[in-house]
């Protein structure tokens, strides 16, 4: 029998607030994401269209350059909502391979290494854990979508004549809202599917499949049943329509049929997809490891 001296002292110093602890997980996540050369490569690749678009803004606002570049008309050099829609679309689709590469690194490794019981035995809840990973992924994706598009907008504001900025603030708002919806959805999809597939490479493939297989099915439904509602399974189509409306770009109309989906229907579908992702994460992100022993 021990003789208890009761001289053990538990830690009684100050503790940081919960957001600071979640910040540790974000730091973990970003460090993990950036530790791969492929991640860096994807970041650099996402810079290429941005640089091209940046040059376009410069040329569009430089009379000498405009004269040199084009002698047959300057329509492609116009900086308007269509230009920013193109920029947002380009950058957002570059975010997809980046997400499918980074997301599995954030969660799959923890699951494969059974590190969750260790991490969740700290004063960080399952929600805090997922939030930390979500923020890390969101920040990574925002740096290749929202950030470049807003830099382009600011650059154009710098060159543009007075009044252009105030007249086009809705474009900036559209970029922020459209980009945020897209990267939120991508982050949720990435984390959810990564939590179900322990093999990282397979997880990357599954994420792509989760986006393009339903899109294919939606395309078949649309073609066979001659209905626009099949497009509700088609994420690229839904997002394109949403971005067009957010940036105020006139929608293209297919000859013979109205393929335009109501914004409410699109938002409900995106919300439903996010809820499914939450349910998937809730089912998989658990501290327990039921090992009989």
């Amino acid at each position, binding site marked *: *029998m*021990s*003789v*208890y*001296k*009761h*001289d*053990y*002292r*538990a*830690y009684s*110093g*100050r*503790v*940081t*607030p*919960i957001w*600071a*602890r979640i910040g*540790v*997980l974000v730091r*973990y996540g970003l*460090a*993990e994401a950036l*530790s791969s050369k492929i991640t860096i490569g994807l970041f650099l690749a996402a810079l290429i269209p941005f640089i091209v678009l940046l040059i376009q803004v410069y040329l569009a606002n430089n009379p000498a350059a405009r004269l040199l570049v084009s002698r047959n008309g300057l329509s492609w050099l116009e900086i308007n909502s269509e230009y920013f829609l193109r920029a947002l679309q380009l950058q957002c689709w570059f975010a997809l391979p980046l997400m499918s590469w980074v997301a599995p690194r954030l969660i799959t*490794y*923890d699951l494969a*290494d*059974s*590190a969750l*019981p*260790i*991490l*969740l*035995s*700290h*004063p*960080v*809840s399952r929600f805090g854990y997922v939030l930390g990973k979500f923020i890390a992924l969101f920040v990574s994706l925002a740096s290749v979508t929202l950030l470049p598009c807003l830099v382009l907008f600011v650059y154009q504001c710098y060159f543009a004549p007075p009044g252009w900025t105030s007249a086009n603030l809705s474009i900036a708002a559209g970029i922020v809202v459209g980009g945020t919806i897209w990267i939120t959805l991508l982050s949720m999809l990435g984390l959810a599917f990564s939590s179900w597939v322990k093999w990282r490479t397979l997880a990357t493939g599954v994420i792509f499949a989760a986006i393009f297989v339903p899109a294919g099915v939606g395309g078949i439904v649309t073609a066979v049943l001659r209905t626009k509602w099949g497009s509700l399974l088609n994420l690229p189509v839904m997002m394109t329509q949403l971005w067009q409306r957010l940036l105020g770009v006139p929608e293209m109309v297919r000859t013979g049929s109205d393929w335009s989906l109501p914004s409410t229907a699109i938002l409900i579908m995106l919300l439903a997809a996010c809820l499914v992702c939450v349910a998937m994460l809730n089912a998989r992100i*658990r*501290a*327990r*490891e*039921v*090992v*009989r*022993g």
Partner: protein
Amino acid sequence: MNDRIVFENVSKFYGEVLGVNRVSFSIPPGITTLVGPNGSGKTTLMNLMTGLVQPSSGQISVLGIGPGDADAFFRMVGYCAQFDSFPRGLTGYQFLFDSLMLHGMADYDAFRLASEALERVRLTEAAGRRIAAYSKGMRQKIRLAQAIAHHPRVLVLDEPLNGLDPMARAESLALFEELGRQGMHLIISSHILDEVDRISDRVILITGGYLIAEGNIHQVRQEVRDKPMQVLVRCDKPELLASRMFSVNHCVEARLHGDGKGVFLRTADIDEFYRLLNDVAIEGLVKIEAVAPADDNANAIYNYLIGSDGGAS
């Protein structure tokens, strides 16, 4: 503040699979050994104790705090999981530092406590190396360091001696003993019962999700009345002592020690046995050098109550 770990009628089911069923106990400070065969529910019990899983029914209170108060609860509990698993790519120091940051320590405190924990498990020199390059014993040590680094009041250790060499095992046991003596709660699940038994005050026996016995090891042993107590008597004439003891009917078995200088005696009445042994000593026929219980330990209790097949007897 309440100084006990209290389970009141706690059950945990994973769907239709039973983890533990209607478990109740109250553990005071000190070292408690959790004993049970594979699949008995030890890890579930530890997960419940550390707040990693919530009970399906019943109440859990650790030093007066329930798992619902997650911040206070997790800060009070240190957990060394049995799994050889770590967040990828970290050095030993980073693992401890980040763990302490997750516990809410400020940078300076995290640095100080991480260094202290590394010192305690003697891993200071290897702190800068990646955990992936550690030996199994070092990985076990760094897990232990992570569990104690934030100065918890309750330490739950799932198979903490696995993979350690004899020297490291002795160091770990000494550390557990020191922490137990200081008034910390240590709950240890281990298959190396002989070694844990030396430092343990209490035992919890579990099998098939049901609690079989709980309490002070000696008291539990005495409660096992259908298994006569075994006592080792070291003496100069073990054969004579054995024959003398057999003259009374409570002595049911005698077995000579391997070196011929002692005898294992099994008795159904331990008080009567000691009284008779006193008489023998006073008579001077046999020179008795030492008397020690031979099956008053967690290992024996495990064998008697659970048996090698893992079924409760």
